[in-house]
């Protein structure tokens, strides 16, 4: 069963696309991650032009994140003030990212820019996760406590100016780190079509020292707004948002997440993280190989120019 994508101007098997959405949703349910960083490369592997893949994944993230934000809102686990600061920085970042994207497109380097960023990001995040999960596993085997992190860390963040009070997080810190973090995540969202939670959540816990219970809700709040704005900006600047593709991915995604969450509950945390690290590394290595191996044809026709 094929369906014609009006913006990508190509036909795809809608069941395959639904399956991709489901699969990535399933993994994000299992591992508790957004999944954007898997969805974009998978769509590119499938043959969707990188520009359309990035912009459309952003719309999928917005669609899938909303209900999560609602749930956290009801539980009172969203720090709206922190979220707002990061959203504003994130919006500026996503505008900058969409601009960078348009420049890359004019230079004919979108493919390279997107794939190179993925290789760096997935490579480093994957390596970090693998390292961490192996360390935890070893520690458990030797009967040591798994988190060797001391609480007496150097708080350079507390020396920064522009301090703000975040009541929900019970923090009194400078606004600069959340702004920088929000900005970076915004740029990543626009250039890579990722939500950025896999970067933001650890940063909020270890850098900003936010209480764990508000981290996920607040990060989702930021991701929702930033991916929505990324979608809109890509639609305006690059005409690369394919609504038909986006809707199929959302449908597959929400169902996948539900099944993934149930299935993931059966696995142990460190097994999860180990598998996750392997998955992230595999996607990164797959993309890296495309750079290193001699292409089948050194000439290529740029689509959607």
């Amino acid at each position, binding site marked *: 069963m094929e369906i014609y994508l009006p913006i990508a101007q190509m036909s795809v098997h809608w069941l395959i696309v639904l399956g991709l959405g489901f699969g990535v949703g399933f993994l994000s349910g299992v591992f508790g991650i957004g999944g954007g960083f898997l969805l974009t490369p998978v769509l590119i592997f499938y043959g969707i032009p990188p520009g359309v893949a990035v912009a459309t994944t952003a719309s999928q993230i917005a669609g899938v994140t909303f209900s999560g934000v609602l749930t956290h809102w009801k539980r009172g686990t969203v720090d709206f003030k922190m979220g707002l600061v990061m959203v504003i920085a994130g919006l500026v970042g996503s505008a900058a990212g969409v601009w960078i994207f348009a420049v890359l497109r004019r230079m004919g380097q979108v493919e390279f820019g997107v794939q190179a960023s993925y290789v760096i990001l997935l490579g480093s995040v994957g390596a970090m996760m693998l390292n961490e999960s192996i360390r935890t596993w070893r520690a458990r085997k030797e009967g040591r406590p798994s988190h060797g992190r001391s609480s007496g860390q150097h708080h350079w963040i507390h020396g920064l100016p522009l301090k703000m009070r975040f009541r929900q997080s019970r923090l009194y810190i400078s606004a600069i780190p959340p702004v920088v973090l929000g900005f970076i995540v915004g740029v990543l969202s626009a250039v890579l079509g990722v939500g950025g939670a896999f970067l933001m959540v650890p940063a909020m816990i270890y850098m900003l020292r936010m209480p764990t219970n508000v981290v996920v809700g607040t990060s989702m709040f930021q991701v929702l707004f930033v991916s929505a704005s990324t979608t809109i900006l890509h639609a305006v600047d690059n005409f690369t948002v394919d609504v038909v593709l986006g809707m199929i991915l959302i449908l597959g995604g929400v169902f996948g997440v539900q099944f993934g969450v149930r299935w993931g509950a059966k696995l142990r945390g460190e097994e999860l993280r180990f598998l996750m690290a392997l998955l992230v590394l595999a996607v990164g290595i797959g993309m890296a190989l495309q750079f290193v191996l001699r292409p089948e*044809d050194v000439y*290529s026709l740029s689509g959607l120019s």
Partner: protein
Amino acid sequence: MRTLALACLLFFAPAFAEQGLTSMLSQDYLQIYSNFQGSEITVFGALENSSDVGPDSLKGQIVVVVRGPDALQTVRKKERVAGIWINRARAKMWLPSYYFVASTAPLANIASGETLRRYELGLNNLQAEVVASDGSARPYQAALVRAQQKSGLYRENPAGVEQQSTAFRVHVPVPASVPRGSYTVEVYLFRDGNVIAAQSTPFYVDQAGFERRLFEFAHQKPLYYGVATVLMGILLGWGSTFFFKRS
């Protein structure tokens, strides 16, 4: 160049009056709907007998060319920089976004290379102004032809004209990725290496219905389109969570 040649040919058409050629298409408007998986149009035609020349007038070879709208296309060349393959040089050229040629015999047996080039018959005879950033234009054009052949947009079928006495028929494949725009179908009758009759018929390819409205919406009101996409996504994502609450 080709258009000019064709215009002259059609202008002087009365000169070929003793050898007639008629052709028509199975449809002159191809609409792309959401279930579009590619299609096919058929060109029908007949050679018209002229009594004063006799049965000899029905001899000749037929070439049918279908061209899509010309588009400025960019071909990029990857080079190895520090171990990594990266796009460096590029060339831009105006070439048809779709090209199909069918004939009763291999083109080389029908006319001289010069004639084929003049009418742009055959994938190697497409004339384009190529602006290459590294000087050599030829490999870029060849690469474009290769890429378009791979995606089914360029095709050459030297046995594609089915002929039965005076009637002929050509099936023109239309792949799913067919670009929108106005197309021309040109039918040439060759004898002894010369064009002795020609006819040109237009047809149109466009997205239809829902797809067309979406495409226009996305390009004419991109801000509203972006906002609508996000809202629809949110509604869909939110709505489907109720499905799980019940089950």
